[in-house]
């Protein structure tokens, strides 16, 4: 592919661009990558829907039968899958809110309160977690927060909590784990948005006798909307479906849709059920995000990429 890469003189201005419209270079450059994405990302998403409409069982295999009834079975009245789905979304929302509340001040600190020379170093520190497998990190939390673990021992030692106080197995533990794992996904886009703010706008606000809080709420916050939006997108989607935190930090009362999909596929080999669950989850998340995008603003989704 690289042999094709030497691009002919690059389009300099819109008028030159017009002339290069019929240039084959972009197609050749994009060919392999987009073909890969089509075959291994787009088609699989569709085949997920197809598998959900199959009937069969793990022993005899599955055949395609347009079995729409599966959705009625999986999401019928009284089905606990609604509960698992709702729980996944609730965890996702809660984790997103926590990451905004923690991540925004962190990003603000890096963007406005440290010398430029230090910014990259601090960002590096925020991203340091990415260098350790998140399964290990989550398990380290389980280790630290377990009933005999260091954190609870200390808290019990100073009589801050009672003997029967637990952290693991609670909603809070799962939400904390999810928020922890995705914090950097919130800090980075907000930081980028904060850095883009023209300092003169903030000065203008001050010149117009805006208090610090007014400057923040009327100038800074609106200007970072795109960053918050990107962060919400990344964090919410990732945490709503994550099966790892609920299973390592949670207990029997924290079972989510992510775990349900994983168990149906890998443990029970009910491929059609699992595919139906994952299709519904994708649609529900899509609807929530679409509604949110319409309400929160008309940010061009491409700007986030």
């Amino acid at each position, binding site marked *: *592919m690289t042999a094709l*890469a*030497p691009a*002919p*003189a*690059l389009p*300099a201005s819109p008028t030159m661009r017009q002339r290069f419209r019929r*240039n084959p270079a972009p*197609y050749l*450059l*994009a060919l*392999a*990558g*987009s073909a*890969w*994405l089509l075959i291994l*990302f787009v088609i*699989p998403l569709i085949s*997920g829907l*197809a598998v959900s409409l199959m009937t069969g069982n793990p022993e005899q295999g599955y055949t395609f039968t347009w079995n729409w009834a599966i959705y009625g079975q999986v999401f019928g009245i009284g089905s606990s899958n609604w509960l698992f789905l709702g729980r996944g979304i609730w965890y996702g929302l809660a984790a997103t809110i926590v990451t905004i509340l923690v991540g925004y001040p*962190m990003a603000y*600190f890096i963007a*406005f*309160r440290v010398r*430029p020379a230090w910014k990259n170093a601090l960002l590096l520190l*925020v991203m340091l*977690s*990415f*260098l*350790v*497998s998140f*399964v*290990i*990190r989550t398990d*380290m*939390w389980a*280790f*630290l927060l377990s009933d*005999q673990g260091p954190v609870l021992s200390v808290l019990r030692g100073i009589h801050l909590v009672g003997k029967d106080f637990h952290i693991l197995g609670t909603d809070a533990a799962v939400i904390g784990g999810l928020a*922890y794992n995705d914090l950097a996904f919130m800090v980075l886009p907000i930081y980028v948005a904060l850095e883009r703010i023209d*300092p003169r706008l903030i*000065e203008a606000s001050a010149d117009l006798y805006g*208090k*610090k809080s007014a400057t923040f709420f009327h100038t800074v916050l609106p200007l970072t909307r795109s960053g918050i939006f990107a962060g919400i*997108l990344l964090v919410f*989607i*990732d945490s709503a*479906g*994550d099966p790892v935190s609920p299973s*390592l930090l949670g207990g029997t009362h924290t079972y989510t849709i*992510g775990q349900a999909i994983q168990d149906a*596929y*890998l443990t029970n080999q009910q491929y059609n059920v699992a*595919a139906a669950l994952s299709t519904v*989850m*994708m649609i529900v*998340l899509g609807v929530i995000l679409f509604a949110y995008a319409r309400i929160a603003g008309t940010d061009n*989704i*491409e700007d986030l*990429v």
Partner: protein
Amino acid sequence: MSTTTAPAPAAGPAPRGLPDPAANVVRLPRKRRGPFLPIFFWVFLVITLLPIITMVVYSFNNTPTSRITFNWHGFTLYWYENLTQVQGLGDAFLLSVVIALLSAIISIALGVPLAMALERYRFFGKGAISTTVFADIAAPSIVVGAASLSFFLSTSIPLGFWTVLLVHVTFCLAYVVVVVRARLSGTGTVLEQAAADLGASPFTAFVKVTLPLLVPGMIAAGALALAMSIDDYVITSFVAGPAVTFPLFVYGAAKVGLPPQVLCFGTIIFAVGLLVMLLNSWLTRRGQKSGR
């Protein structure tokens, strides 16, 4: 925080047409500032680093059993000397490293040209490809994993090394495209035009100008791809079949208690990653200095 806003003296005469806001001539007026933000930042930073610190520290713990324990039994390098003692762990780590390297290389080979096409040209299908790349990053891992498994099942492709590699390349590719695009949009086409004006052929301009500009972006993209690949549990758990990668092994072991060697491997990955990160930021800084 009651500040009567004394207008920053430098602010007034700043010429309006200044093109570069990043020139950091005028920053926020430095005034009295509460300690809240720094304290908040450092407290939460330490909290995010807590599991990593725990991992590194406990990888040196001289535990009497071959499971990690809460009590500190003294410093030892025993677990590092016996890395491969645990059945399957060494193989899992090796597999993860091989898959991470391969998927980084393949996703860069595919992603850099794609990023160039998306950033430097307008062409039919550009919007669709951009949206697909975005969707690839935004889609929940659990859905991507389930969908990929559905795909491999319905095409009867046997699960194992190759399916893991295919899937890892797919999600790394999207990250590579985003990182390289960001890098390309930052450099602009001025230098390539200058090269062309000075008589360089398009090929020479690409090799001598575009490629060197892209190197830091490619290293960053490659490092990100490596990190994403070596870290992925959810998607891999669907398509691995009989293959066991490092995160899969860790997840399985986590249910019964981790052997200390897992922490050693984690620490090794962390140390190597840190080195690459520092090297890249050093390269970027050097590139920026010589670029100006």
